[in-house]
C-alpha cells in the first residue's frame, strides 16, 4: 500500500450540524456500498444512537476513492462520539487521524461544541478544513459563516465546499478536498511497532477487536504484542480493515494504516483506549502520548425492580462492561432497595444510555437512585475517602472538610440571553470567569461550576432559558472545598437510604422542601397517614404529609359485569407490584429519581 495514497480523517461538528449525514454521503459516493446496504445512517449502528441522533461509540470505515487526478485513494473515516461525556474517546480518535473536516451549519454558524471540537483537533495537530453544510436552507448565510470561521477559529474558509449533505449537494468537492488538504500519514513500516488504540469492541467469537492506527512499524498474524499501559500481552490472530459494517481481514497493517487486530483477548480492560500497542519482541522506546485512565464522573445506584433479578442485572452489567471500559460497578446493598450495584459513568448521558440498554436489551426493570458526583471527604484523622454513595458519608464528627469536583464551562449564547444564562449559572453556584464576544450578537461565557450542579438538568435549563440558542461544553477543572451536607429523607419516620443525597448547605432547606413536595406527589395514599420529612444531621428541616386514603370503593357491578370490575382490581394490584416496600409504606420506583425533577417548575 502506497502510504501517500492514504487519508486518515474524521469529521467534527456541533451536534445536529450534519456530521453523520455527511459521513453517509461520503461512503455512498465512494461507491463501495449499494443503496441496499445503506442503513439510514451507517456510522451510527446502535438503535439508541439512531434514536437520539448522536454517535456514542466511534465506528470507523475504510473506503476507496477514485480521485480526479486518476489515482485511487484509501480513506479511513474515523467517526467520533459527539457528546461531552465522551471527550477522552474523542481525543483518542482524533489522535488516530491526520486531518479533520469541520462541518458548520450554514444557518447556525459556530456553536460551543464546534469550537471545543476544533480546538481539540488543532491540539492534536490535525489539518482542519471547513465545509459549510445545509446551504439549501432558506436561512443559510454561507458568507457570514465563512467569515465567522476565519475570525473565530482562524482557519482559511473562503474556498470551503458549500454542501447539503442531506440532498447530496457538493459531496464531490468534499472528496477532492480530502485528497488535497489532508496530509498523507507519516511513519515508517521499518520502525518498531507503535499503534494507537482508539476503540475496541468485544466479540464472543474473536474476543476483543482492537481498533488501532499504526503510527510506526507493522503488525500481522502471529506478531506477539504488548499493550504498554496495561501491560497485557497477546499473539495476534487476525488483522484487517473496516468494511461498511464488517471486518475484512488482510495480511498486515503497516505504518499509516487504520485497522483492527484480534488476539483472543478476553477483556476490554486490557485494551484501554489511548494505550499503545507494540511488538513484544521488538518494542518501541516510548508509548504514544496522551494516554489516561478514564474515571467515572457520575455515580448512581442501580437495583433490579424485582429483587430476584439481581443475578440477571449482574450478568448484564458484566456483558456491557466487555464493550465499555468506562462503565464501573460494584455491588452494594440498600435497606430500601435490597441488592444492587453502585455504577460509575462518564456523565449523565452515559448513565442514561446504560440504563436504557439494560432495560431494553436485557429486559430488566430497574430502580435507579439519584446520580451524584464523587466527593472527597477529609476526615479528622487525616484520611481522605472518595464518596460515591451518600449513605456512606462518615459521621459529621469524623469529617474535617469536604471537597467537590468543579468544571470549567464554556457557554456560547446570543447576546440577548446573556442575562438569563448568567442568572442560571449564579443559581447553580457558578463562579464567573469571563465573557468573550465572538461577534456583535454572540458571546462565549466562561464559568466555573460545581459538577453536581450541572449533572442533572443544567443542559435543559440552559436550553429553556435561551430558547434553545445556548450551547455548552465543559471539562473537569479539579476539586474545591465546599460546605456540603447530607440530606436524608424519612418516610413514615424511617430513613430511606436510597433517597439521601449530598447537597450544598445553603440549598439544603430549599431542596429538602422541594423533595418532600415531590415525594408527596409520588407516594400514593395509604390506609394510614404518612409523614415525609427531610433532615440534615438528624434535624428535621421540612415536612409534608400524605393523607390517609379515605375512600376506594367500587361502583355497582351493573348487570353482573364482573370481569370489568376485576380488571380494575387487577390494575390496582399491578400498580402495587411496581412499588418498593419500605417499612409499611409502598414507594413507587420513580420516586427514587425525584431529586432529578426538583427544578421542573
Amino acid at each position, binding site marked *: 500500500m502506497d502510504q501517500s495514497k492514504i487519508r486518515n480523517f474524521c469529521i467534527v461538528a456541533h451536534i445536529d450540524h450534519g456530521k453523520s449525514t455527511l459521513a453517509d454521503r461520503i461512503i455512498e459516493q465512494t461507491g463501495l456500498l449499494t443503496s441496499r446496504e445503506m442503513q439510514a445512517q451507517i456510522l451510527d449502528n446502535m438503535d439508541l444512537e439512531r434514536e437520539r441522533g448522536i454517535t456514542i461509540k466511534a465506528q470507523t470505515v475504510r473506503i476507496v476513492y477514485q480521485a480526479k487526478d486518476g489515482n485511487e485513494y484509501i480513506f479511513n473515516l474515523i467517526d467520533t462520539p459527539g457528546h461531552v461525556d465522551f471527550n477522552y474517546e474523542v481525543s483518542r480518535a482524533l489522535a488516530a487521524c491526520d486531518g479533520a473536516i469541520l462541518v458548520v451549519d450554514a444557518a447556525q454558524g459556530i456553536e460551543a461544541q464546534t469550537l471545543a471540537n476544533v480546538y481539540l483537533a488543532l491540539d492534536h495537530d490535525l489539518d482542519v478544513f471547513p465545509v459549510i453544510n445545509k446551504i439549501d436552507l432558506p436561512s443559510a448565510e454561507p458568507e457570514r459563516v465563512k467569515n465567522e470561521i476565519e475570525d473565530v477559529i482562524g482557519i482559511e474558509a473562503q474556498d470551503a465546499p458549500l454542501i447539503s449533505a442531506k440532498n447530496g449537494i457538493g459531496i464531490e468537492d468534499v472528496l477532492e478536498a480530502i485528497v488535497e488538504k489532508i496530509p498523507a500519514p507519516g511513519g515508517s513500516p521499518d520502525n518498531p511497532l507503535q499503534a494507537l488504540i482508539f476503540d475496541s469492541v468485544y466479540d464472543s467469537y474473536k474476543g476483543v477487536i482492537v481498533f488501532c492506527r499504526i503510527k510506526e512499524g507493522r503488525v500481522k498474524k502471529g506478531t506477539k504484542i504488548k499493550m504498554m499501559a496495561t501491560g497485557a500481552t497477546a499473539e495476534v490472530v487476525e488483522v484487517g480493515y473496516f468494511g461498511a459494517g464488517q471486518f475484512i481481514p488482510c495480511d498486515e497493517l503497516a505504518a499509516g494504516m487504520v485497522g483492527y487486530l484480534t488476539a483472543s483477548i478476553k477483556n476490554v480492560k486490557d485494551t484501554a483506549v489511548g494505550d499503545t500497542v507494540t511488538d513484544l519482541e521488538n518494542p518501541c522506546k516510548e508509548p504514544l502520548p496522551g494516554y489516561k485512565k478514564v474515571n467515572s464522573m457520575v455515580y448512581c445506584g442501580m437495583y433490579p425492580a424485582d429483587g430476584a433479578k439481581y443475578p440477571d442485572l449482574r450478568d448484564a452489567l458484566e456483558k456491557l462492561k466487555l464493550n465499555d471500559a468506562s462503565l464501573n460497578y460494584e455491588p452494594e446493598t440498600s435497606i430500601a432497595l435490597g441488592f444492587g450495584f453502585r455504577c460509575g459513568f462518564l456523565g449523565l448521558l452515559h448513565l442514561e444510555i446504560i440504563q436504557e440498554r439494560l432495560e431494553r436489551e436485557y429486559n430488566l426493570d430497574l430502580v435507579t437512585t439519584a446520580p451524584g458526583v464523587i466527593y472527597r471527604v477529609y476526615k479528622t484523622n487525616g484520611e481522605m475517602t472518595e464518596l460515591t454513595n451518600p449513605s456512606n458519608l462518615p459521621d459529621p464528627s469524623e469529617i474535617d472538610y469536604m471537597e467537590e469536583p468543579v468544571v470549567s464551562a464554556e457557554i456560547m449564547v446570543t447576546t440577548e440571553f446573556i442575562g438569563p444564562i448568567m442568572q442560571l449559572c449564579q443559581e447553580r453556584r457558578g463562579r464567573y470567569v469571563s465573557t468573550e464576544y465572538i461577534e456583535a450578537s454572540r458571546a462565549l461565557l466562561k464559568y466555573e461550576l460545581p459538577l453536581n450542579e450541572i449533572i442533572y438538568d443544567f443542559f435543559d435549563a440552559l436550553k429553556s432559558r435561551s430558547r434553545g440558542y445556548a450551547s455548552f461544553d465543559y471539562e473537569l477543572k479539579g476539586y474545591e472545598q465546599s460546605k456540603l451536607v447530607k440530606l436524608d429523607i424519612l418516610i413514615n419516620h424511617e430513613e430511606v437510604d436510597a433517597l439521601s443525597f449530598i447537597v450544598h448547605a445553603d440549598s439544603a432547606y430549599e431542596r429538602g422542601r422541594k423533595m418532600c413536595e415531590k415525594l408527596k406527589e409520588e407516594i400514593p395514599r395509604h*390506609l394510614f397517614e404518612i409523614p415525609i420529612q427531610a433532615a440534615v444531621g438528624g434535624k428535621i428541616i421540612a415536612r409534608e404529609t400524605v393523607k390517609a386514603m*379515605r*375512600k376506594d*370503593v367500587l361502583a355497582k357491578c351493573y348487570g*353482573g359485569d*364482573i*370481569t370489568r370490575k*376485576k380488571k380494575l382490581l*387487577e390494575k390496582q394490584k399491578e400498580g402495587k407490584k411496581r412499588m418498593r416496600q419500605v417499612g409499611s409504606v409502598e414507594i413507587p420506583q420513580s420516586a427514587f429519581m425525584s431529586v432529578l425533577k426538583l427544578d421542573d417548575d
Partner: protein
Amino acid sequence: MRELSIYIHIPFCVRKCLYCDFLSAPADSGRIESYVNLLLQEIKKQAVFYGDHRVVSIFLGGGTPSLLPAADMGRILAQIRSGYSVAEDAEITVECNPGTVTEDKLKNYITHGINRLSIGLQSTDDGELARIGRIHSYGDFLETYRLAREAGFGNINVDLMAGLPGQGMDSYRRTLERVTALSPEHISAYSLILEEGTPLYGNQSAYQFPDEDEDREMYELTGRYLAEAGYSRYEISNYAREGFACRHNKVYWRRGDYAGFGLGASSMVKNVRWKNPAKHGDYAAYVENMGRQPGRQPDADVAAGTEAVWVSRMEQAGADEVQRLTTAEQMEEFMFLGLRLTEGVDPEEFQRMFGKSMEEVYGKTIAAFERRGLLTRKEGRLALTLRGIDVSNVVFASFLF
C-alpha cells in the same frame, strides 16, 4: 335443578345522563322493535341450554327498559316462560325512570307477572337532577311512585346517589327523609363515580363535587339514617326492609348462575363467564348465527353441559371474552364478590367448594386486614367493617393472586 337468574339488557334511553357509561343510547321505535325481535330469538335459541335450570329471578335493566311498549315486555317474558322453567315465586324486576310509565303501562306490567319495580330517582333536589342530566324532576318521581303503588306494586326500589355536584349534607339528608317517608321496600344508594369518557368526567372542573370526606359522611349518614328507618344494609350500596333484599342482586355476589340476554350482556354459568357482543351489528349476527354452527352437541348432552361444553358452545356462538374460571379465579371471586355482602363470606362454604381452608389460602391477608380493622368475624363469617367498606378496593385487590 340449578337456579338461574336472567338479566335482560335494554340499551335505550330518552337521553343519556351525564355520568352514565352503560351501554345505552336514544333510539326510535323501529330500532326498538328490531332489537326486541333479536332478544326474542336469542332467548328462544338459548333455551335448550338451560334444561336443567329453574329461573328464580328476572331483571330487565338498561338503559331505560320502561321505554319499551308494555306489549314488548309481555312478549319477552312470555318467551322466557315458554322455553324455561320459571319458579312460581320468581322475582321479576323492571327498571324505570320517572315520567316514562303511565298508569296503563304499570297495570300491564302487573298482568305480565312483573312484581318488582326499580325507580331511578337519584335525588329529590331538582337542581341536582338537572346538573347530572336527568330527564325528570322530583315531582315526576312522586307521580310515578304513586301510580306504581296504585297499580299494585308491593316491592319497589328507589335508586339514590350521593356525591352529586352541588350536593350538600343537608340536601342529601332531605332526600333520605323524603324517600323513607314513602316507605319503599328497597333503597339503592350509590356514590357517584366519575367514569372516563362521560361528559361529567370530561367537564368535571365545571362542577363542585363534595370532597372525599363529605362523600364518606354521606355514606355513613345513609347507613345510620336508613337503619333507623327500618332498612338494613345487605350489600355495600343496597338497603332493604326485612325480606325485601333483591334476590337478583345477591346472585352476582354469591356467584350463582345467571344468563344475560341482549346487547353486551354478561353471563356466568357453571363457572364459565362470557359477554354478548357490544355492537348492534355484531349482536345481530351473533343471534342470527346461534344454533347454525356445525357439529353441535345433541341437545340432551348440551342440557347436562359440563364447563368445557359451555366454553365451546359460547365460543362457537361468537360470544366475547369466554372464560372458564380456574379454581384460583373462583377463589378470588368468592372473596371479592362475597365480601360486598354485609353477611360476608363463609369459610365453611369456601372449604366445601374448593377443598381447602380459607385460612390456608388467604390466612395472612385476612389477618393483616383484621389487624387494621378492615375485616371482622361475624358469627363464624368474615365481613368488611365500615372502614373496610370505605376502602374495599384495597381489600378486594389483595385477594387476587
